[in-house]
């Protein structure tokens, strides 16, 4: 687990940049898919393979990186690339099997993803019982469920790249499955108490996680914790779109809004890279808690 520090102006800056970067990454991921689907659907499966290969290479590259900031930064992008490939593979599967859209508008690939819930549970159970996993949420559950038989594993994690990669995929996967279960009209439905609950709980947890995030004043830990923080807020974005209260700018290709998001992403990428380079050259110092 990363060590939490007092909230400072610096940590507010790092938090804001991380949140903008992860949000921009998700939004740009969506718009890339929409543009390909709209203007050049013929290349989508080649694109998926390119993403998978790039993601795996990027993940491999973290093995050579020394700073946890770079490892997390590249690990997150590797996670997004492989996630792209996974969504496209489901899209291909849905197309091949003739899976329809639902009457409330859910896409075939997400319908298929819903049925991976048991697989998700299996992976989650492994993480829950694996005592060396240091994820705050899983650690909390392990403590509450009395699954922890000793102190949590401590010591340096040598490569945060694969962890960030896995975290990105797991968090995104979990929330997609959760939303799809909520949208299922046989189980709950888009306007059911369950979906309302997911909406309000996600909104509340986003603020709590943002508050926690403010304690991390460097990009390694901050980026990693920004992943669940933004993804949980993304639940609300998705639900608002489902309720037709929000026209997603990346689906309806609203360029003025998308330009702001892309601009924010570009600026935050620049700030992150600048900071990480500064750190690797020893120009930025971070004091640890004693």
């Amino acid at each position, binding site marked *: 687990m990363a060590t939490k520090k007092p909230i400072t102006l610096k940590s507010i800056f790092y938090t804001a940049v991380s949140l903008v970067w992860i949000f921009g990454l998700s939004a740009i991921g969506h718009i890339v898919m929409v543009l390909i689907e709209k203007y050049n659907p013929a290349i989508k499966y080649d694109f998926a393979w390119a993403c998978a290969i*790039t993601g795996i290479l990027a993940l491999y590259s973290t093995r050579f990186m020394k700073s946890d900031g770079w490892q997390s930064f590249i690990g997150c992008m590797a996670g997004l690339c492989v996630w792209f490939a996974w969504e496209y593979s489901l899209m291909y599967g849905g197309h091949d099997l003739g899976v329809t*859209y639902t009457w409330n508008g859910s896409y075939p690939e997400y319908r298929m993803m819903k049925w991976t819930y048991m697989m998700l549970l299996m992976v989650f159970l492994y993480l829950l019982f694996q005592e060396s996993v240091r994820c705050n949420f899983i650690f909390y559950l392990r403590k509450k469920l009395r699954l922890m038989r000793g102190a949590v594993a401590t010591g340096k994690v040598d490569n945060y790249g694969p962890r960030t990669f896995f975290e990105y995929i797991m968090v995104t996967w979990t929330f997609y499955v959760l939303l799809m279960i909520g949208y299922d009209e046989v189980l709950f439905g888009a306007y059911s108490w369950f979906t309302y609950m997911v909406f309000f709980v996600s909104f509340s947890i986003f603020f709590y996680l943002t508050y926690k995030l403010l304690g991390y004043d460097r990009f390694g830990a901050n980026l990693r914790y920004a992943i669940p923080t933004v993804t949980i807020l993304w639940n609300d974005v998705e639900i608002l779109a489902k309720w037709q209260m929000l*026209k997603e700018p990346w689906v309806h290709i609203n360029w003025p809004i998308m330009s702001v998001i892309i601009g924010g992403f570009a600026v935050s990428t620049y700030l992150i890279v600048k900071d990480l380079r500064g750190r690797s050259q020893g120009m930025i110092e971070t004091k640890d808690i004693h």
Partner: protein
Amino acid sequence: MRYAHFGLICIMALMIFVQPAYSQEQTGKEKYEARLTSLADRFFAAQKAGTTIKGVIVEGNSLFNGTTEPQKKPYGKPYSDAERKTALRSAERNSKVFLLARDGTLYSPTVKKGQAESESLGAYRFDRVITEEQKKKKTLPWATLVPLVGREIEVLGEVYPGYSGVKGLFIEALGFEGDYVPGK
């Protein structure tokens, strides 16, 4: 930190892969917009000439086993609310859907004549012709058939003789009122 450059090389590799997509996107975008404009022109011309096919989308299994009788209901309201809910659920489980015209003709959506290998049309995204009013609401220019069960649509396409009274209908584009997914 020189190894971090390896990561950046990976990103560049992705961009190189995507480059052909981007350069094609310009032509792809132009082609896409030209296709939609051409479809809209042809759709409205056919509408004026009275050659579009109008009908309500009905769910096939409950129609053919006689459980629902949309053909006996007033045109435009083929199902009760409860029936429509069930019909929608069946359709999203990939039961075949049909177009029932006002004169009672049943059309089976199919692919273009000559195409032997095909896919489920319940999963297919059809181009949707949108009016100026709908454009203002940022309506999506495509639709699939499942959410349209029980609703009236207008089709630009080709009619084939079909079999045993049920005609084949190749849907080139479709138009309808309201949102694709109507919401609550």
